């Protein structure tokens, strides 16, 4: 049972992690994150990096769609902008990776701002459809511009830290995970301030929000810009991780993947973004495991891709019908149970 969480100052009440148990768990999690790479196999390190990149991007989408209510199917395109920026800078200019990642974020942010400009006139589902159009246009540019390597794409040399190439999952872990953690903290902080509140207000009732003092266009653009910045950085990390960027690397299906991730995890909650991204990344891996264990295993692998597609769709539908607040809500229920135990409610 959770007792003794008395707060004596307003600042204490507003802290992100406010109880002793939470702080302990946080320390444990941090310790695990640090120890993990030394204990894990290459396969798990690879997964950890992939999960981390997806968490970063999903968090960006959550800011735009979960918190501000602007549905976007363009997250993959913005990641592509970031990835291509990093690829071009690494191959043609050779600037250090920190700069490249930031540049990737900025280019993606510009893309986001452009797509966001009509968001005052174009609302709701129309905006979602406009982002699909933007995705296609981006894909077209990637595939047909010689500067971006056309349909063959670009291969990316590894990021280097003081001459040491980050070319193994182990080394990249130390780049990807801290960046993701920083991005998560930033997002959590955002919603303790007026900026975050404004985003939520826009989602819940945008016209009233305006009369209450929130300039709609400015904040919608801010949301677009911020979330695509996140996507751009995630895309840059993606480029350093996979080391090759092609127009097919960021298809519309990937945007759907991220939207599914925040729905499954829980829109409008930072934890939801994390849970959703982890879940969606792990499901195909779990599937592979199951198929390997089944008796007719090797024959069934040809079904892997379509089954994955079906499960993907079923997850989206299932969560929307049965658990619209996602895994984060399930988590909250479990927490509430332990906070109140041995009482029922």
């Amino acid at each position, binding site marked *: 049972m959770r007792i003794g969480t008395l707060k004596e100052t307003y600042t204490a009440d507003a802290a992100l992690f406010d109880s002793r148990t939470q702080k302990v768990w946080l320390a444990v999690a941090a310790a695990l994150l640090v120890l993990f790479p030394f204990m894990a196999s290459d396969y798990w390190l690879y997964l950890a990096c992939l999960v981390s990149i997806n968490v970063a991007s999903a968090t960006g989408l959550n800011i735009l769609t979960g918190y501000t209510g602007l549905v976007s199917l363009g997250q993959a395109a913005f990641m592509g902008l970031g990835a291509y920026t990093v690829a071009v800078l690494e191959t043609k200019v050779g600037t250090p990776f920190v700069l490249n990642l930031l540049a990737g974020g900025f280019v993606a942010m510009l893309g986001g701002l452009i797509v966001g400009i009509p968001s005052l006139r174009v609302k709701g589902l129309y905006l979602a459809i406009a982002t699909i159009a933007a995705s296609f246009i981006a894909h077209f540019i990637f595939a047909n511009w010689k500067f971006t390597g056309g349909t063959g794409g670009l291969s990316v040399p590894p990021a280097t830290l003081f001459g040491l190439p980050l070319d193994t999952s182990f080394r990249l872990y130390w780049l990807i995970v801290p960046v993701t953690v920083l991005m998560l903290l930033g997002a959590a902080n955002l919603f303790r301030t007026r900026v975050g509140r404004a985003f939520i207000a826009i989602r819940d009732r945008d016209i009233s929000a305006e009369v209450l003092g929130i300039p709609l266009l400015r904040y919608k653009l801010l949301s677009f810009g911020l979330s695509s910045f996140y996507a751009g950085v995630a895309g840059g990390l993606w480029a350093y991780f996979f080391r090759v960027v092609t127009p097919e690397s960021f298809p519309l299906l990937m945007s759907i993947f991220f939207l599914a991730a925040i729905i499954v995890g829980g829109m409008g909650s930072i934890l939801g973004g994390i849970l959703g991204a982890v879940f969606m990344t792990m499901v195909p891996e779990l599937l592979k495991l199951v198929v390997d264990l089944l008796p007719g295993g090797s024959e069934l692998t040809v079904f892997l891709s379509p089954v994955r597609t079906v499960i993907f*769709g079923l997850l*989206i539908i299932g969560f929307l019908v049965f658990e619209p607040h996602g895994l984060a809500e399930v988590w909250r229920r479990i927490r509430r149970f332990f906070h109140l135990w041995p009482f029922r409610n």
Partner: protein
Amino acid sequence: MDWAYLFEISLTGIAGGGLYALAALAFVMVYKATRVVNIAIGEMLMAGAYLFFTFASMFALPLWLAIPAAVLGAGLLGAVIERTMIRPLLGEPPISVFMVTVGLASVLVGLVEMIWTADQRRLPDFMPTKPIMIGDAFLAPKVFWGAMIAVVFIAAVLLVFRFWRGGVALRATASDQAAAYSVGINVPRVFSLAWVASGMLAAISGIIVGSIGGISSSMGVFGLSVLVVVIVGGLDSVLGALIGGLLIGLIEALAGAYLGGEYKLLATFIVLVAVLLVRPYGLFGTHEIERL
């Protein structure tokens, strides 16, 4: 300026547009009755085509049996979709239902790939094969006859909406569910009917499109163009679906011929963006007024 070529391309485009119009009609049917944006319309089209393929090629049923069977099957699919995934989300924000249709699209594509594999297939021919000549312009027979069939169905639907009680009920349910209930309209039944009709129209469209270009698990991309059509025409306008379809068909054909095949979708999407900026409710859609 080769006018004859332009005329020929335009003709093909308009005929193709007729097919877009039919599929757009399936979309509008659902939106008019339930205010749901069904992004899986292309995949429902695909499902209809594959059902026809199964009945005609795999079960070797004669055409006069296979086509109605496929259409009815697609209608049934529509009813199942409505009951299991749309009805439970009544009252939820529209974006949730939209996402459900995104999930549905995924499920349909995956199912098709599982059952029939991702390879492209050919549908049995059932349309006359004599080339159509209008003046000096050549029009592929399948495209022409497909457009004719589409026109027949569009006309039928237009009449139904106008004069049949069911059509009026559909429009009533769309504007105000509670009011429709209170005048005795069986709202859930109207919802089901709308989705059944939509499924059937999509199937007819799918069979025609499949006959022209073959069927595959990526046929659903047709739905993106249909989406543009309904936005241009107005999400809830039957007339808009018709005119929008012809327009988009024309634009795509011209883009394809004069700029190159890969520019088709690009041209369509540029039109989409332009329409969204200038006239988001489309040519004939109803303008929603926001109240504070």
